[in-house]
């Protein structure tokens, strides 16, 4: 490692060459205040709060964007810097509504923290708010440009991390704001509802559509039987809202909390993740051995990804697995198989899902296949953040809750189901089962290291019966186009496809870092949450979907076999090309 | 185009353009172009000057026109102003004489004696004439 010698606030230190002043200061436990900077993104250098002084230079530099250089002398804090930072914060505050009490980000707002830390008690400059309408056109997220501080994180996430380009800066000067091109509504834009914008917003300018009221109303309704499912990624993140470390598993406490909220049955989406594997692995094996469909097969459990594909790569529709996402499968069987068991009709059941994801709010009505039970299969989706609020407002002391178990027979899960929540997990789960479907044997080593890790695109080979299966995993939407272009190129040139099976998750790290997860997600947090899910997998009784006894039961009692007619009716969906803009 | 072609073209252009350039042009031929002058053939004279200067590749000479110099009886009249030589007004300058003025007066600093109208001091004429 190449290093450079620098001085920070007079103290000499040797740091890695090429890192930013901000990172170097952090290594010395010096916090330089920031607002627009986010570790997920290239430094945008907009807010001007992280300015520092360099010795022998009248200019101030942005710590977030300036790399250290040999011999650099940096001053991170002094009265002048304090004054400048404070003035900049005051200026930003002069254009920001001060209705903190009624803001979704109250007590969890980066601007609020800055104002608090700098002890701002009055507004010295005239207040100039922008009277701009909210965009609540999508079922997932709300954009409130009035609160926007133009830090650029959302636009950069949307463009750099996700390659979606739904939102961007429009207007200039003080009229600069975030909006889709040509001021289209978000719902009519390329937006894939992944909600990464909302997860990265430092203030309350983009946030999930709050639907906690819907669930509460259903619980109040005596004629409704409320069944709630929780997604894999929720169990390693919800706890953060109650002081747990990221990655600590709190599955049992979540079941418990939901029951205390008054729901009638608690299920686990991990169960239908196993179900998804049964269908998807069968589909894959058939495509591979019988040529029943296009290779490579693409996973389809991420609704943001399916939306992206329908908009940006409609030519790849035949490659998609037709299997619904675990959440939608769970909804469908809750209102059919389970409803039968408890002698209820589908309309008497209210099916709710706790998801790490904002796109899931969109998925539940995305096409007519989402009503396979005859009713809307999933009635409402709440994000992890919304559930945390519900638990708090219900006065539930989360930390002292007992660990409970999910309801049966659609609540038990395998280790394969739980790792659906992180990048590489779906692939690993599918391979564990596909191996069995082809060979009749179990994988000698359940951990498939080739598909694990945080690289944006990972690929590897797995040998099944002498046949080498080439697989790829991509996460963070911007990474998928690289893989898909490889596929398209091979197709154009009439070559064998470079991969047989590709897993895609729209969000970096997978669902554990979804747009609906607790704020403050960084790569460090992602790693911890992923480790939590792998730990959940390791300690599971069974680690492959086909070994889950409740899965075996549902096929025996209800579905018959994977890809049966019933499966097709309830567990599979279809895709349609969609225009980027609907204007 | 290669280097040689470029240089050749540039040289050609330089010459034709140099007459537009008034810097370093310390020699001036002023042709009287009043009605009388023109009637006496001053246009042909002017043309002859320009052609001859072109042929002799003299780029530091500026040919300008002026109105009637008041010496209508010896039109076309021409005044030549240059360093190291007295200002001279020539009369009855036809194209032939014009060429002579360029070759003798301008190139060899010798006056074309028989056409000098405004005679400077005799010794200079003498001196020039004897050369």
């Amino acid at each position, binding site marked *: 490692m190449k290093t450079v010698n620098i001085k920070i606030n007079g103290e000499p230190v040797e740091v890695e060459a090429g890192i930013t002043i901000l990172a170097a200061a952090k290594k010395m436990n010096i916090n330089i205040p920031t607002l627009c900077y986010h570790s997920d993104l290239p*430094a945008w*250098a*907009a*807010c*001007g709060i992280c*300015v520092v002084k360099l010795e022998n230079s009248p*200019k101030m530099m*942005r710590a977030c*964007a*300036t*790399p250290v250089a040999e011999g650099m002398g940096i001053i991170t804090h002094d009265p002048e810097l304090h*004054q*400048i930072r404070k*003035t*900049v914060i005051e*200026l*930003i505050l*002069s254009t920001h509504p001060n209705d903190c009490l009624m803001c979704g980000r109250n007590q969890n707002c980066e601007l609020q923290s800055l104002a608090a830390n700098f002890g701002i008690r009055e507004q*010295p*400059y*005239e207040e*100039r708010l922008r009277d701009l309408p909210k965009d609540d056109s999508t079922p997932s997220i709300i954009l409130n440009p009035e609160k926007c501080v*133009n830090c*650029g994180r959302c636009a950069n996430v949307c463009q750099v991390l996700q390659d979606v380009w739904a939102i*961007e*800066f429009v*207007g*200039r*000067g*003080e*009229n*600069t704001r975030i909006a889709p091109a040509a001021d289209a509504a978000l719902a009519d834009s390329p937006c894939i509802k992944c909600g990464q914008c909302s997860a990265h917003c430092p203030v309350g300018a983009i946030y999930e559509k709050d639907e906690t009221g819907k669930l509460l109303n259903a619980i109040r309704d005596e004629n409704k039987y409320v069944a709630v499912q929780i997604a894999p990624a929720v169990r390693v993140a919800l706890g953060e809202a109650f002081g747990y470390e990221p990655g600590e598993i709190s599955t049992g406490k979540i079941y418990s909390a939901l029951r205390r909220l008054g729901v009638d049955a608690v299920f686990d989406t991990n169960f239908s993740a196993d179900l998804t594997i049964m269908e998807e692995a069968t589909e894959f094996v058939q495509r591979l051995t019988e040529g029943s469909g296009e290779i490579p097969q693409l996973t389809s459990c991420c609704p943001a990804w399916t939306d992206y594909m329908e908009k940006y790569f409609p030519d790849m529709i035949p490659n998609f697995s037709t299997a619904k996402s675990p959440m939608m499968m769970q909804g469908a069987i809750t209102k059919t198989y389970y409803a039968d068991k408890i002698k209820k009709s589908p309309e008497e059941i209210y099916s709710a899902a706790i998801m790490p994801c904002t796109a899931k709010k969109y998925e539940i009505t995305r096409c007519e296949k989402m009503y396979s039970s005859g009713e809307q299969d999933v009635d409402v989706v709440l994000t992890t953040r919304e559930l945390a609020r519900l638990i708090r407002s219900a006065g539930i002391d989360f930390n002292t809750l007992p660990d409970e178990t999910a309801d049966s027979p659609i609540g038990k899960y395998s280790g394969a189901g739980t790792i659906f929540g992180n990048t590489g997990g779906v692939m690993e789960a599918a391979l564990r089962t596909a191996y069995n479907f082809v060979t009749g044997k179990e994988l000698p080593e359940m951990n498939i290291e080739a598909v694990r890790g945080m690289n944006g695109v990972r690929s590897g080979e797995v040998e099944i019966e002498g046949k080498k299966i080439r697989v790829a995993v991509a996460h963070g939407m911007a990474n998928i186009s690289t893989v898909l272009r490889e596929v398209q190129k091979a197709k154009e040139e009439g070559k064998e496809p470079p991969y047989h099976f590709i897993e895609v998750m729209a969000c970096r790290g997978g669902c554990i870092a979804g747009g609906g997860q607790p704020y403050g997600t960084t790569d460090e947090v992602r790693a911890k949450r992923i480790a939590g899910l792998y730990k959940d997998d390791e300690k599971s009784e069974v680690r492959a979907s086909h070994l889950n006894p409740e899965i075996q039961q549902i096929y025996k009692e209800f579905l018959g076999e994977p890809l049966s007619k019933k499966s097709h009716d309830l567990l599979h969906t279809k895709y349609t090309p969609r225009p980027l803009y609907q204007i | *185009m*290669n*280097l040689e072609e*470029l240089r050749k*073209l*540039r040289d050609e*252009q*330089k*010459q*034709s*353009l*140099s*007459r*537009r*350039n*008034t810097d370093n*042009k310390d020699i001036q031929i002023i042709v009287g*172009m*009043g009605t009388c002058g023109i009637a006496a053939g001053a246009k042909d004279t002017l*043309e002859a000057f*320009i*052609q001859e200067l*072109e042929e002799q590749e003299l780029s530091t000479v*500026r*040919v*300008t*026109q002026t*109105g009637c110099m008041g010496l209508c009886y010896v039109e076309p009249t021409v005044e030549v102003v240059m360093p190291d030589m007295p200002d001279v007004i020539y009369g009855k300058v036809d194209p032939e004489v014009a060429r002579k003025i360029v070759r003798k007066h301008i190139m060899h600093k010798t006056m074309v004696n028989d056409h000098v109208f405004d005679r400077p001091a005799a010794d200079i004429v003498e001196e020039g004439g004897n050369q």
Partner: protein
Amino acid sequence: MAAFTNFILVCGGTACESSKSDKIYKNLMHECESQGVRDKVQVVKTGCFGFCEQGPIIKVLPEESFYVQVTPEDAKEIVSEHIVKGREVTRLLYDKAESKKRAQIDEMDFYQKQVRVVLRNCGVINPEDINEYLGRDGYVALEKALFELKPDDIIEELKTSGLRGRGGAGFPTWMKWNFTKQVENDQKYIVCNADEGDPGAYMDRSTLEGDPHSILEAMTIAGYTVGANFGYIYIRAEYPLAINRLKIAMAQAREYGLLGDNILDTGFNFDIEIRLGAGAFVCGEETALLRSIEGERGMPTPRPPFPATKGVFDKPTVINNVETWANIPIILMKGGEWFSKIGTEDSKGTKVFALTGKIRNSGLVEVPMGTTLREIVFDIGGGIPNGKEFKAVQTGGPSGGVITKDYLDTPIDYVHLQKLGSIMGSGGMIVMDEDDCMVDVSKFYLGFTVDESCGKCAPCRVGGRTLYNILERITEGEGEMEDLERIKSIAHATQKASLCGLGQTAPNPIISTITYFEDEYKAHIKDKRCPAGHCKKLITYHILPDKCIGCGLCARRCPTNAISGEIRQLHTIDQELCIKCGECYNVCKFDAVYVR
């Protein structure tokens, strides 16, 4: 070859074109034809002469008759009198104010102190004819670069010349080139910044219109020097004439093998593409400009990385402004040594200024660095018109500051301007007289930067607007003394915490006017009075009883009928109705209206 006896140079710059110089050109051609002198006269449409105050301008050679304010109807007389009969059209000549004698071009005060390096071909050649450029030693520098010099020699020559960037910051040009040269990369780019945006500045436009080949030649030389074979000219779409001439020049250069593949049979390839900007001022900032070339929104990005190592499409890029480029060919031709003799110790060469405002001879002025402001304003510019008193000059456009009477003898170069709290900028120079209110002036400039801010960084976006609103309050008589403190802290934060030059320099006009004219601010705030009599909310118009003869002219002109009075009786102004348009003041022939 036709032997021309006369040359008529018609200014084809944008300013003269807009006053019908194109029509003049056509009429002259027509007249030469019909008066039978077509083969004796060459009519040339050239670039800007710089003396825009008096346009349209026509120069007739070899007599060097400098005709000003020519109309298309004058063409007939110019041909019949001057060309056919050899008599100058006296009424069109630019007369020196003192004597009625015809002014020869190098004797005119306007041109006398100027040294034309950048503008050497402007107003001399036909910019649409590559042959004319060749005839003025065009492409000699490229020839020298390709056949005689090694890239390092060229950089050495630039270093000797002391040339610094003319775009504003004044960074040594050779260093920029050298950085890019030293970076290893298979693809590098050359960029010409022609996104001239300072209010009142148009030297780049004139250079491109008058001498487009010099820019192409310079960029090609840079390509050869640093190892790039593609260049972009980023020019605003509002410069159609310049764009058109560049296109013509590029086509001709390609045809001659001076641009494109295998230049002059050397195997060196270099081509150029024009990118049109939509006119955002911030796109003159180099990183924003590069983003705009890439097709992105024109927003500045942090430096480092500097364009020299990571520029357009993340490739090493040499980016210079038009005026800098225009200096390159002549430096290589005449040598860095020659260039370094012009100008001052640390500012070499000349600088073109666009002299405008309250000045007699507005126009483009090229002077050696170190020329004093007094020479520019009074000798070249002819001083302040209408007997008014000089108050200040704003240099550096909206990023600069004012220079007051006390500093008129300061030599104009990078160092001295900075010391005075202004900057060289791209060379805008706006002269102000006693009628200009300094609070209003800084409000004007701030208004410009507030409008043109890209909105990216908070200090500029919010700070600029907040400052502007404070100034607006002050000019409306609503200011308070605390405002001065507010201005100082916002200005400081904006200067230090803005990302790009636009934001960092936006408060300069306000800071420099407060420094030199604090009393004027205080008069507005404390006394609710505008000393220059400019700020409408703070002034009232009155009629002096002893001067008013009751002619009634003011009353007839008043748009709101605020003035009443019987004919031959004293008139009075109803302050309730008066909208302070100043029309009464302007029309009164007896100086009976005054401002309080």
